[in-house]
């Protein structure tokens, strides 16, 4: 009875949980963040006055593999959510861990790519390509990193047994974030790598 008011606060006008509306609104804001970065990248395309230029360095086969890894992490993510919703603890643990690991592989790939570029003389401040490229993909990488930490925290909760179907909502919200980051990469893969 005492908790009547609290219940009231969790009850929502639209029937959609607050957190879910929040994450979608946040994703809307993120669209503008990446939109501005992409606009900057495209505005400066082909304007570098010294090399190396994108076509000298971008390694399509390599990045195709990491792209594939990130796509599959999204699959792992939905499977994780579905396992949590069904109360399948083993599945939750496996798929949450898989998602995080795939995300880390992607980040490792980005690390290899970045250090290769730097090694080839394309440091951050080398030219406009390097500046826009590192800013754009770096921002994306930072988002993946936050996602990995988030997933590992959820994994920690599941391992302690704190995550049953009653808490599926927080996994769903993390998943929405994760898929959005994936979707951004789908765009970047095309804009940066395939349409050089």
């Amino acid at each position: 009875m005492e908790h009547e008011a609290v219940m009231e606060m969790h009850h929502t006008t639209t029937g959609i949980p607050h957190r879910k509306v929040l994450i979608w609104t946040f994703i809307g804001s993120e669209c503008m963040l990446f939109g501005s970065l992409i606009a900057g990248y495209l505005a400066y395309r082909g304007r570098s006055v010294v090399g190396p230029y994108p076509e000298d360095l971008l390694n399509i086969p390599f990045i195709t593999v990491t792209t594939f890894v990130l796509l599959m992490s999204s699959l792992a993510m939905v499977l994780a959510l579905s396992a949590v919703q069904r109360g399948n603890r083993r599945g939750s643990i496996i798929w949450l861990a898989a998602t995080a690991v795939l995300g880390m592989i992607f980040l490792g790939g980005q690390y290899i790519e970045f250090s290769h570029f730097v090694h080839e003389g394309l440091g951050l401040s080398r030219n406009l390509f390097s500046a826009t490229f590192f800013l754009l993909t770096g921002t994306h990488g930072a988002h993946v990193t936050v996602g990995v930490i988030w997933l590992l925290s959820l994994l920690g909760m599941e391992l302690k047994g704190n995550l049953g179907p009653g808490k599926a909502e927080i996994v769903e919200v993390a998943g929405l974030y994760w898929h959005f980051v994936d979707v951004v990469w789908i765009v970047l893969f095309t804009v940066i790598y395939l349409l050089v």
Partner: protein
Amino acid sequence: MSQTQSHGHSEPHTSNKTYVLVAAVLAMVTAVEVMVFYLEALRPVIVPILVVLSAAKFSLVAAFFMHLKYDGRLLRSLFAGPLFVAIAIILAMMALYGAFAVGAA
């Protein structure tokens, strides 16, 4: 925006089979994209083809993995509205920077 009644609680929307199928399609489209990239013959039309293919992947993830296909109109507009503004601004900036100028590559 209107009142949207939708699943208040998270429950599975889709079978895992569908998810795996969607992922397979995503992988395949990615492979096709890379193929298009390497095919000299397609060079002149590479931009429209790749834009369409990546838009398709984008929509698949949004619709199935992010459940927009099943969730209410409200969430869809919360995503679509900002996305529209962002795309419009990217296009306007491309135009301002001469991407669509006659004779531009």
